[in-house]
């Protein structure tokens, strides 16, 4: 398989995720965009691991680490969003920005 297939797919997913982070009004859906961008990075790591035929699987082990960090990030991020919702009764990032 050409190395370019996963790399171009990863670039496309990263762009879509960036659009989601910047364009969404709901803070929870913003976090979904972050997850999509992290997944694009994972795709790159796995593609380069397979391309190098690495003996200690650097790329795939780093992908496992990234997935763990993404789980930690979404847990902490959603806790912050819930705290924000309790404080100002909204998760609309435009309204929160206008109030503060």
């Amino acid at each position, binding site marked *: *398989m*050409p*190395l*370019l*297939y*996963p*790399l*171009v*797919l990863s*670039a*496309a*997913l990263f762009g*879509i995720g*960036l*659009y*989601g982070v*910047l*364009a*969404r*009004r*709901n803070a*929870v*859906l913003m976090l*979904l965009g972050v*997850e*999509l961008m992290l*997944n694009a990075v994972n*795709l790159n790591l796995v593609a380069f*691991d*397979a*391309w190098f*035929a690495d003996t*200690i*699987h650097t790329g*795939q*082990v780093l992908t*496992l*680490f990234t*997935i*763990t*960090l*993404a*789980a*930690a*990030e*979404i*847990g*902490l991020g*959603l*806790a*912050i*969003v819930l*705290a924000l*919702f*309790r404080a100002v009764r*909204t*998760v*609309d*990032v*435009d309204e929160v920005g206008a109030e503060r």
Partner: protein
Amino acid sequence: MSATEIVFLLFAALAVGSALLAMTTNQLVHSALWLVVTLGAVAGCFVLMTAEFVAWVQVLVYVGSVVVLVIFALMLTRQQSTISAEVTGNRWTAAVLGLVAAVGLGATVISGFHGERIEGHRIGTARSLGDALFNDWVLPFEILSGVLLAALVGAIVISRSGTER
């Protein structure tokens, strides 16, 4: 073009299409469910790139827990007045920036890795990845467990301080 490449291209098209729907649909829960399709398609791409263990971890952690967590958060933060437009006013700026990022990254990788091929000699089974993880990557693994613990304790503390007020 081999069968692997055709299946990979199908998964790629599925991933990009469902990602676009996940980021643009106005239904909150549909957005999370389209993300499940995207992450599943990316897991399929992992399998085709001989990373089968990573693919199963992706399905377990992302589809199994992250999306469930997001759906819980969407239900807990449901507002009385539903927001009509789910996108901010600067959606066109965001679209241009996303397009610039995708085209820039795509052009960079195309110019840098044109003609390279993945042969797939070393299959990332659970055994080979476990060997690598616990022989060569033990210290980062342990540090990561500390990070995960700190993040979860932090999440609990942030949630609790909200209820006491």
